[in-house]
């Protein structure tokens, strides 16, 4: 029972912390570029503002357009129930392994692309087509790189992978793990619409990928989609943090272990968020035609990771 309660607490924490994480990345980026920047808690105000606004929907849209925000948000929230965020052994882990997580995330992307096409605006269609170009290579990369870890741990269950890695930390410097980390990091940047694949702060429609699909959304729909996208960033960073640097994740359900797990999770998120902010101030956006090449490299790394951890087992 305590386990299910814990899963719910994890979900609530993830929901609450996701806007803060994005705000932190934006704030750090602004500070690194010698700007003052909005405070890290600014996204909460954005959410409140958007949730209070009226929804305007074009007459040309179908039911798809109205359902999508709930699917995007709902799938992201479901994923947070399945992840080992604070503790490695939570009961809901048994209801879905890494494949469920990867394809729940893809479900959101898929519906968002459909919703981008739905109103028939040129930018929406363009954004959807680009998003699919990216997702078509990024998604198998994510699955493969986690498979690399799953092969080493002997289970596709995320909690089990974390527990197994904690039991034998030597496995972390094997090439399989290092290659998988790089591959997952590149794919995570692509999936969450960060530089060098997509510029999250762009205001030019021609360069947009993720934003272009949201141009028609307003009010609470936009709030839900934005919140879902922020959750996705949190999910990917948590995956990177807890699968590859599993120290701190609670393996028992005692209170000190859980508090330690929470603290470790937050620290790891802050470090990864800072790494992203630093990276985004260092590099420019890639040309769109170079993006599939970068993703092909990350796919290759994931493939090599699986091969080497399979053969070195």
């Amino acid at each position: 029972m305590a386990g299910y309660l814990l899963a719910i607490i994890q979900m609530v924490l993830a929901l609450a912390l996701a806007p803060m994480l994005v705000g932190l990345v934006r704030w750090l980026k602004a500070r690194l570029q010698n700007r003052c920047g909005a405070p890290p808690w600014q996204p909460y105000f954005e959410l409140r503002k958007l949730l209070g606004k009226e929804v305007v929907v074009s007459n040309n849209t179908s039911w798809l357009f109205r359902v999508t925000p709930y699917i995007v948000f709902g799938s992201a929230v479901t994923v947070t129930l399945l992840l080992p965020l604070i503790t490695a052994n939570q009961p809901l882990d048994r209801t879905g392994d890494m494949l469920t997580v990867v394809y729940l995330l893809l479900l959101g992307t898929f519906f968002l692309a459909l919703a981008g096409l739905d109103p028939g605006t040129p930018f929406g269609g363009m954004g959807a087509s680009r998003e699919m170009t990216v997702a078509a290579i990024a998604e198998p990369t994510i699955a493969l790189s986690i498979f690399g870890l799953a092969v080493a741990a002997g289970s596709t269950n995320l909690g089990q992978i974390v527990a197994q890695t904690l039991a034998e930390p030597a496995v972390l410097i094997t090439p399989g793990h290092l290659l998988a980390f790089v591959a997952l990091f590149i794919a995570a940047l692509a999936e969450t619409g960060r530089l060098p694949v997509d510029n999250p702060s762009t205001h030019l429609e021609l360069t947009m990928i993720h934003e272009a699909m949201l141009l028609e959304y307003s009010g609470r729909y936009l709030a839900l989609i934005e919140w879902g996208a922020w959750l996705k960033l949190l999910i990917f960073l948590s995956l990177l943090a807890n699968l590859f640097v599993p120290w701190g994740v609670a393996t028992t359900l005692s209170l000190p272990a859980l508090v330690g797990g929470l603290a470790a999770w937050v620290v790891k998120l802050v470090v990864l968020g800072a790494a992203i902010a630093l990276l985004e101030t260092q590099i420019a956006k890639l040309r769109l035609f170079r993006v599939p090449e970068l993703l092909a490299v990350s796919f290759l790394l994931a493939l090599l990771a699986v091969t080497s951890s399979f053969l070195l087992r």
Partner: protein
Amino acid sequence: MNDTLFAQLSTLGASLVLLFGIILLWRRSLMAYVRAFQQQSAVLAALFVVVGYFGQAPELYVVAVILFALKVILIPRLLHRMQNQVGIGYEATPYLNVASSVIVAGLLVLLAYVLTRPVVLTSTLPTRGGLPLAVGLIFVGLFVIITRKKALAQVVGFLVLENGIALLAVLGTFGIPLIVELGVFLDLLMGFLVMQVFIYHIQDTFESLDVDRLSELKY
């Protein structure tokens, strides 16, 4: 414990060396090719030291120093000089585009895994995990040579191929005799200098390093 650490470090080093070979396929500017080769050689030299330490083969330290001097300092410097004289170039249109060549490189490494599987299974060396990666690097080097059009890129491909052979030798035998190693280095340097002369000739005759134009009768 010592053996497992050795096994992990050598496999890690071998994967890093292979990784730089793959970076080569992704990059376009010839400068980046040279830099990737330089970093690859530096990692390779470090790997020689690791194998020398764990495998109790002190002559590998000497080989590592020569390798560092030759492949990290001398040859990249010569390549840079060559580039400055022929103008900095880009591998704009390789025979196979970048995304597909990266995928093909992955298949080549898988092929190397399949081919070396009998050897890896019967071997008792702690370094056996790196053998397929070394063979994979040899394939990737060959692949660079046959798919790139610029003569300079092909030279770097040859050097990467040579790195792959050196990697295979050090992982498979813990160092061939020093005199053979020295012979290989001398051979490599000579080969490189001959290629350099050829490149200057190609540049003089065709005003381009594009090997496609070598097959044209008139220019």
